[in-house]
């Protein structure tokens, strides 16, 4: 597996350093992860970064994994030392999605773990879509997604039976066809699925994005025509052609 492209576009060009999406890769181990930190939360950038780093280190995402992530996040802050406005914001929690990819070469499979509204798409060399996960339809992005929270009480739905199994999928990628997995956060995912549903060759267009100026231009044009929701955008292209 190799990272053929990875780029990000901030939601507010006036504040490029405030991007709250995160991504991490360990290509030798066949692992990649992206996370979308929710705008309206205290420190979703740190939380998103922590989640992707933890996935790269340990792909067995379950309640124990999440509890350890929460403990690591909380250990970074001394609650009693925070100003009053930060105490309440910290207590409301930080929220982020997680989309993790693990390449299993022996099985010729890609395992996809997705909690929240990021999107993974498996396409072949001509841009033909084989699988998407977790959403199959653009309209599903309108729902309020279940995200990982730093506040344990906000994670109760994750404790339901089979939650993590139902948020994991394995895709066969038989040789020798050069498969590609596209990973993207929600604004681009909604835009791409909506155009795919209308017959636009959107996956080929995304395959053609191979540098940051190309991604900037695509997002700027879509935002200008109010065709893409204004949010942080992350796009990653993983190739399995070697």
């Amino acid at each position: 597996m190799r990272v053929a492209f990875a780029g990000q576009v901030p939601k507010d060009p006036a504040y490029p350093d405030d991007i709250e999406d995160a991504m991490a890769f360990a290509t030798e181990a066949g692992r990649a992860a992206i996370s979308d930190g929710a705008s309206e939360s205290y420190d979703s950038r740190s939380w998103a970064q922590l989640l992707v780093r933890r996935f790269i280190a340990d792909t067995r995402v379950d309640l124990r994994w999440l509890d350890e992530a929460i403990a690591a996040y909380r250990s970074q802050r001394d609650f009693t030392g925070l100003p009053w406005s930060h105490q309440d914001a910290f207590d409301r929690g930080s929220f982020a999605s997680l989309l993790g990819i693990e390449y299993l070469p022996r099985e010729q499979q890609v395992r996809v773990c997705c909690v929240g509204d990021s999107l993974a798409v498996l396409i072949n060399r001509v841009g033909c879509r084989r699988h998407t996960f977790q959403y199959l339809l653009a309209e599903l992005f309108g729902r309020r997604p279940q995200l990982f929270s730093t506040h344990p009480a906000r994670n109760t739905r994750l404790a339901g039976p089979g939650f993590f199994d139902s948020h994991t999928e394995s895709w066969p990628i038989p040789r020798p066809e050069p498969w590609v997995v596209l990973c993207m956060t929600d604004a681009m995912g909604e835009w791409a699925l909506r155009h795919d549903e209308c017959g636009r060759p959107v996956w080929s267009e995304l395959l053609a994005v191979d540098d940051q100026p190309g991604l900037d231009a695509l997002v700027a044009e879509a935002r200008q025509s109010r065709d893409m929701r204004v949010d942080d955008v992350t796009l990653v292209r993983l190739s399995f052609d070697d």
Partner: protein
Amino acid sequence: MPYQAEISRSHPTAFLFVVDQSLSMQSIMSNGISKAQQVADVVNRTLFTLITRCTKAEGTRDYFEVGVLGYGGSEVRNGLQGKLAGAVLHPISRVEASPLRVDERMKKMDDGAGGLIEQSIKFPIWFDPQSEGVTPMCQAMYRAADELADWCDAHPGSYPPTVLHVTDGESTDGNPEQLAERLCQLETEDGAVLMLTLHLSTAGNDPLRFPAAESGLPDEYSKMLFRMSSPLPDRLMAIAQEEGFQVEKGSKGFIFNADVVEIVQFFDIGTRASELR
């Protein structure tokens, strides 16, 4: 489609609380405290919540500008005093930095291991209750329009301002309906000023929440306040539904005879505007 603009630091929105501070606000509610104190508590809690929503690890982002106008006796006054007395509307970071005082309260909190611990938290106060004299509501509407006209001119691309008006009495300086209408004609490119009204009536009638018609209201005065209120945009309609209120097409941002819990919900729903980014 109006009321769709995302709220950002480049395009903030505004919340203006317009609070009746006439003598009748001294009357006692079912929880044993005065309407004036109850409303002041909720305004302070709402300001706190707005600040929390804007607070990131690196600081408070100016997604909102907020102000409070109080009216009672012969005047309309700036409800924010101390360092905030010099203007009505302030960026939320300035409000965060300038409470009148900070009280200590106890709060039960998650301990991160499945249990609860009681922890002392700070509760800032910006707005103190006051109740005196008559009810100059026309003056208040006029002053609100004055403030928001300038704001809309300066923020043409923003989600429009929301006025949260709380009153229990009849206007004593004339009919405010036309002035409210003029206030709600102010607009940004994303829509007209929203007026949401909480009528804490002294009449003993049953509460009426977000009605679509004035027919169920008991008197001409409550009907006038209903007409002064804006229809709920789709997003606020959805939030009101999530909170358990029955709303329908044409439902207005108006609650008649709210109880203590509904006062809190009214402020919560009214300040949930659009997505922050």
